[in-house]
Structure formats: C-alpha cells, structure tokens
C-alpha cells in the first residue's frame, strides 16, 4: 500500500533521479503553474495592456482597481458567498452520510450488502447530464430555480463518497473494536459515536476536501439551475466569459483569480493530504 512506510519508496524510488528526470519534471511543473501565474499577471494589469505584444509577463499595479470592479460591478463577492454556502452544505452532508453508509458497507453484515455496494459503484459512472432535464422540471415546478437549494439538494450525498469511506474504514477500523463495544452492550449509535467517528476522522477530512473542490467547481447543473442574479462563482465566471458584462479581459482574469484563489490556498496548506486522499480513493479498485 502506498501508505506503508516500508514500501513507500517503491522499486524505482531506490534509484535516484538523473538530471534529465529533473529537467522534465521542472518543465511539467512550470507548464502546470504558468497559467495560474499568468492569471495573476493579467488580473494585475489593465485590459489594454493584455492586448499588446509582447504579452505581459510580470504583475502590474492594477490589481486593486480590477478587484474593485469585480467585487462591486460583477458581484463576485456575492458569488463567492453563494459558493461557500453551497460547497459547505454539500460537503458537510456528503461527509456525514458517506461515513454512515461507508461504515455499514465496511463493517456491518447485512443482507444485500454486496449487491447494494455494486450499485454504489455503478452509480459513480452516471454523468450529471442524464439527470438535468427531470431535475430542471422538478425545480421549475417548485419555483426553486435560481435558489441555492436547487444546487444543494441533488448533491447531498455522492456515491464516490460512500465508496471512499467504505475503503477507508475497511482498512482503518479493526473489526475487533466494534465487536468489543458490542460485547459491552453498546448500541449501534453509541459505537458509531465513540468508536467509528474518532477513527474515521482523517478519512472524513480528506473526503471533505475532495468534495469541497468538486462542489466548488461544479458547472453544468448550477449553470442551468441558477442565473446571473444569484450565481455561484462558476456561474458568474461563465457570465463574465460569455459577455454578460461589458468587462475587459483583466476583469475576466480577476474573476478567475478570485474563483480559484480559495482552493489554491487550501491546496497550498493541505496539499499533502489532498495528494494522499486522491490516491487512496483510486488505487484499491
């Protein structure tokens, strides 16, 4: 397993990397980071400066000016707040329900467990576009379009999360602990609270980050369900790019920067855990 420190270096890791390896990796790292750096460059220059050759490569002095336009004219502040609310609700509920279901699938024997688990895995492959039309009909019927609940409710729990927590708890939670608590006469709820949750916490944290990123960046359904009068960040960005506002390119880039910066900040602080989480969820198939 990747987490096993004994094997952590792996077979290849025993050989040191040569200069060519470093060269390739540095090129890839630069290519990965350059568009983000350039977003900052563009967001800090004036729109007319971007449309010049050679293109600007160093940050300019217009960042506050552009932020002011993005905040006050494009309402990126409201969009950010909406995104925090939506992604926060979706994350909290997904982590909670996924942990409950993941615990049941990992450690509790019950009838139909394997069949239901296969169903969970199959659900992960169904794309969002297959459900937007009925969802739109429902939300229109309820007069919920353009309200945040229309994008929160359908995402209260995701199959990916259930599968993730099941994988995590299968490994992390010794079945003896659950049995011992049972011998002591603890109820299921008590076991969940005092035995499962403390052990599940690292997995829940990683899942929370992954779900938050996913929800923050969700695009197709929010674009349909919400409008520019009450958008999430991604919907607001789509409006910026689609010409809903009479804005120059510097403001478009400032919006992109505002929409991306919170996640990049989280990544910079917790990057190692995110890396671990992504790999933990995928490898054990």
């Amino acid at each position: 397993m990747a987490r096993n420190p004994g094997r952590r270096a792996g077979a290849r890791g025993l050989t040191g990397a040569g200069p060519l390896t470093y060269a390739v990796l540095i090129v890839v790292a630069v290519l990965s980071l350059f568009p983000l750096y350039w977003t900052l460059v563009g967001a800090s220059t004036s729109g007319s400066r971007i449309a010049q050759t050679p293109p600007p490569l160093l940050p300019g002095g217009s960042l506050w000016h552009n932020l002011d336009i993005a905040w006050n004219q494009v309402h990126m502040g409201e969009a950010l707040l909406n995104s925090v609310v939506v992604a926060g609700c979706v994350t909290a509920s997904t982590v909670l329900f996924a942990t409950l279901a993941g615990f049941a699938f990992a450690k509790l024997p019950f009838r139909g467990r394997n069949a239901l688990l296969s169903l969970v895995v199959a659900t992960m492959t169904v794309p969002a576009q297959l459900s937007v039309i009925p969802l739109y009909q429902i939300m229109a019927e309820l007069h919920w379009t353009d309200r945040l609940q229309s994008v929160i409710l359908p995402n209260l729990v995701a199959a990916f999360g259930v599968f993730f927590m099941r994988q995590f708890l299968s490994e992390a939670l010794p079945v003896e602990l659950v049995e011992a608590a049972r011998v002591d006469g603890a109820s299921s709820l008590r076991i969940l609270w005092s035995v499962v949750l403390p052990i599940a916490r690292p997995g829940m944290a990683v899942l929370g980050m992954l779900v938050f990123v996913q929800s923050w960046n969700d695009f197709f359904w929010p674009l349909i369900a919400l409008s520019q009068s009450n958008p999430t960040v991604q919907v607001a960005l789509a409006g910026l790019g689609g010409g809903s506002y009479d804005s120059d390119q510097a403001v478009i880039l400032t919006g992109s920067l505002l929409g991306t910066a919170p996640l990049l900040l989280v990544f910079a602080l917790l990057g190692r855990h995110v890396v671990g989480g992504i790999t933990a969820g995928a490898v054990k198939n």
Partner: protein
Amino acid sequence: MLDEAVPATPLGGPPPAPPPPRPWRTRLYRWDLKASPYLYVAPFFACFLAFGLFPLIYTGWVSLHSVDLQAPDQMQWRGFDNYTRLLHDDLFRNALRNTLTIGVLSTVPQLLMALGLAHLLNYRLRGRGFFRIAMLAPYATSIAAATLVFSLLFGRDYGMINWLLGQLGLSPVDWEGGTWSSQIALSVIVTWRWTGYNALIYLAAMQAVPHDLYEAAALDGANRWQQFRHVTVPSIRPTILFTVVVSSIGATQLFGEPLLFGGGATGHSGGSAHQYQTLGLYLYDQGWYAFHLGRAAAVAWTMLLILLAIGALNLALARFRRARNGS
C-alpha cells in the same frame, strides 16, 4: 462477531419471536443490530433514488415526448420521433464526431503522459512534495477559470501562444476558428487540468508493486524500459483501466470547456461553424436555446448508450485478456 449477533434468520424479514425470558433490552439490542445497517445506508439510497435513478429513467420517458422548456410540465407523446430526428440531424452527427475526436485527443496523450510522469515521480527525488502539488494545482482550478485563461492564451491576435509561435518564426494559428486547431486547443485545456491528477493515481499504484518483481526481472536481464513494460504496466493494469473508464466518461460529457472557449454569446453552438460543439453542448443547445427538452433528453440517453457501450467494450477487453492469459 458474537454468536448472538449472527442473524439466525434472514434479515429484513419479520423479527423472530424472542424466547419469553429475554428482557426488553435484549430485544431492543437485537433489533438495533439488524436495523442499524439499513438506517445508515438509507440517506444515501434515498438521495440516489430521488436525484439519481429517478431522473435517469425519467429522462428516457421525457425523450419520448415533445416538451417545451417554458412549459416543462406539459408533455406530448412523440414515440421515437426525437431519436429518428437525431439520426438525420447533421448537427447531432457533427457533435458526435467532435466528442469522439476531442475525446481521443484529450485522453490518449493525457494518460500516456501521466504514466510517464508517474514513472519519473517514482524515482528518489528532491522536492518531491513540490512537484506533486505543482502538478495537482490545475486540478484545483475550475473548468470555468481554466477555460477563460486558456482562451486568452490561445487568442488569435494577442494570445501568448501565437506570440511564442511568432518568436519561433511560425505563422499564427486561428485557434478558435479552425476545426482541428480549436479541438486541439480544447484538448490542451483538458489535458492541462487532468494529467497531474492521473499521474498521482498511477504513482500510488506503482508504489504498491512489490520490489521482488523488479529484482527478478533484473536478474533475467531486463533493462529499465523492459521492466517498465513487463513489470510496471501489467502490475498497475487495474488502475489504468480505472483511469481509462473515468476519462472516457469525462470526455463523453465534455461541456464547460467548449461552452466558454469562444468567449462570446455563441458558446452553446460550439463556434460559428459548430466546429467544436460536443454532445453535452448540443444537449444544452437543444434544451435551453431551442427550448426542446424532449430532444435534449434523447441526446442524454444517446450519451448513456455510448457510455454503456464503452463499459461493455472495457469489460470484453478485460475478459478477452484474462482468457488469453489463462490459456
């Protein structure tokens, strides 16, 4: 498990009559034991039924009707008209073709590069953490933000990429206007966002390959490349299959990148000549610009059929490989 905890009778059925001397606490305990797993999975399945399975099936039902976006509750039966119409629709065939070409252009190089990168990251490295996080940064960037930035980089007149081409003495490319150029540009955006993510998944799989396999291969005289081909790749094949499936699903529903790439109000048509209109975009165009929800639903179900075909193909390939290796 305790003897007492093992269900003697099928779960879910009526609870067995407990022997009379048992106190109510024990009965409660046994009920708790049997019912709690179902309670724990219930929220997920309730949500799945309401927002996953029901809409999936109901989309199929809508696809047999004529439904106007402005009166989504009124449906008129049309049988398979929406589907036969699709078969004769040039724009649908165009979208299908574009989805396929962009899908191949964006997933094949991406996964091959991810495999190579994972191999490099698996060496003993200085700054390993930095490289991993740098490669994952595009994953944290949203489709909308990434596409807006790349649209400017790919700009015909002032874009940095054309400027670089000019520095190299090459003539500028109208990235958005051409068929191939626009599809390549879109594939670059997809590849940029996902290569690092897939590389990290491969890396984790590679680190789980037992060291003895490499030692045995080295004893047999296998060089680095042969070890990679005959030890690494076969060992991580399930992971490769997983990424192929996930990437194919992503490619089939490609939507945000082509919608925002043009940077204008015509995003839903996928360029002035529909040169990069994908199936996802065509669905959106039919439903939310032409107001035909029934036709959009038919597009959605066609996508489902394509995904099922991809799944069946993968399964058949895996089975074929197993059968061949077994014999």
